[in-house]
């Protein structure tokens, strides 16, 4: 079942990835803008089981690692996204009060984006990457939280509709 869902999701993620790498990167937005792909992957993970969330994170992280803008070694994003996908899904799994509340989901996704980037940064430090000035890090994290909080409510209906259509699960919020 996991493999089936994974391969069904793959074209969608590839499309979003191409959209992110070729279109979203054209916009020069405040604080470096947003990662449509990251928000999408987290929302997608939040709608499934923890195992599916981890698998979604694996696929998403693998694609993110393929990006030329990824500064770390191949697998860094994969590792972080496996854990993030699992954690986001785990938080809401079985708790209908949480999953049924879009505000909670938006908040979780926005917070997760910041935490994920922070962990990526720290892990990158351990692996010898340069991180730039503290101010630029702060600004980047702040702006990613802002953009995620702004975009997640817009993406959430779309993601839930696609998820429901593909897996025939009542996940619409």
């Amino acid at each position, binding site marked *: 079942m*996991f493999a089936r869902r994974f391969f069904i999701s793959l074209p969608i993620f590839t499309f979003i990835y*191409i959209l992110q*790498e*070729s*279109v979203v*990167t*054209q*916009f*020069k*937005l*405040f604080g470096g803008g947003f990662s449509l792909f990251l928000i999408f992957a987290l929302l997608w993970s939040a709608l499934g*089981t*923890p*195992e599916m969330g*981890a*698998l979604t*994170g*694996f696929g998403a*992280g693998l694609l993110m*690692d*393929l*990006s*030329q803008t*990824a500064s770390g*070694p*191949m*697998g*860094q994003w*994969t*590792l972080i996204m*496996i*854990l993030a996908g*699992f954690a986001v899904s*785990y938080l809401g*799994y*079985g708790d209908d009060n949480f999953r049924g509340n879009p505000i909670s989901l938006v908040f979780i996704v926005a917070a997760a984006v910041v935490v994920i980037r922070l962990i990526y940064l720290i892990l990158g430090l351990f*692996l010898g990457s340069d991180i730039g000035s503290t101010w630029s890090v702060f600004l980047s994290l702040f702006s990613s939280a802002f953009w995620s909080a702004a975009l997640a409510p817009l993406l959430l209906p779309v993601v839930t509709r696609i998820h429901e259509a593909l897996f025939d699960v009542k996940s619409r919020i």
Partner: protein
Amino acid sequence: MRNGGDNRGRLLLISLIVTALFLITLDLRGVQVITGLRNGSQSALSPVQSVAATIFRPVGNFFSDVTQLGRTRGEIERLKASNEKLQKELIDRKNADAELAQLKSVLDLAGTAKYKVVNAKVISLGSTSSFTQTITIDAGTNDGIRQNMTVITGLGLVGVVKISYPNSALVQLTTDPAFKVGARVAGSQQIGILSGQGTSKAVLQLLDNQTTLKVGDVILARGSVNNRPFVPGVPIGQVTSVDNAAGAVTQTADIKLYVNFSALSTVAVVVSAPKEDPRDALVPRAPVPTPVPTVTIYAQPSESPAP
């Protein structure tokens, strides 16, 4: 899995994490396949990115402009101010360059004749309402300038100091109708009186009726007793026409003055002159003609059509 979970889900999670760690290890060890994957993905994406850039770049620029509207406006204002400042500096620089060129030429002239000079800047042009032609310079008695001192530029005689104040001086120009100076012709050493005419030309009247002038002769200041008001040897102008009227006692000639009085900005006042007369040492060198290339065109008549 939430409540103890099944082993399958746990195994999946562990497998995925191990895979990720394996990928990191491989990449850090420099395995080429991993690098190739990343390069391959970029190669595949680049055409899409190019198309997207063509389509979405104007939109992206619009967003960029909107988000940076205040900053862009500020940047424009800052650039405008900077541009104005630079233009002013450029004008100042051009003025400075012109003054420097004049100063250099006057120092060359003074150096050749071994004059001791005080440089001064022209601070005003005298009013011509009373038909006088004067300038005011920014050096006066405090700088050692006294009445009846010769004023020159790199091209030649400008005039004479008429009144000297502590920090400025009034100079009567050679073009002033009341201006008169003893002059001599370079080479032949004929002497005469040169009078200003209120224009860029002056008139020279020779004292000796046995001598003759010709067009192109260079006229120099003859010099005064104790070098005041005029030091000897300063170039004044060049003969442009000679009046050979039959009834005239002596010959007169029109002199084109060397100095351009409409572009005076820096002058020098000769405060002392050497005991030796420089003679014709200050005569301006004749311009060296620039050879003009001759273009020869060979025309080949085309064959006329047969009738």
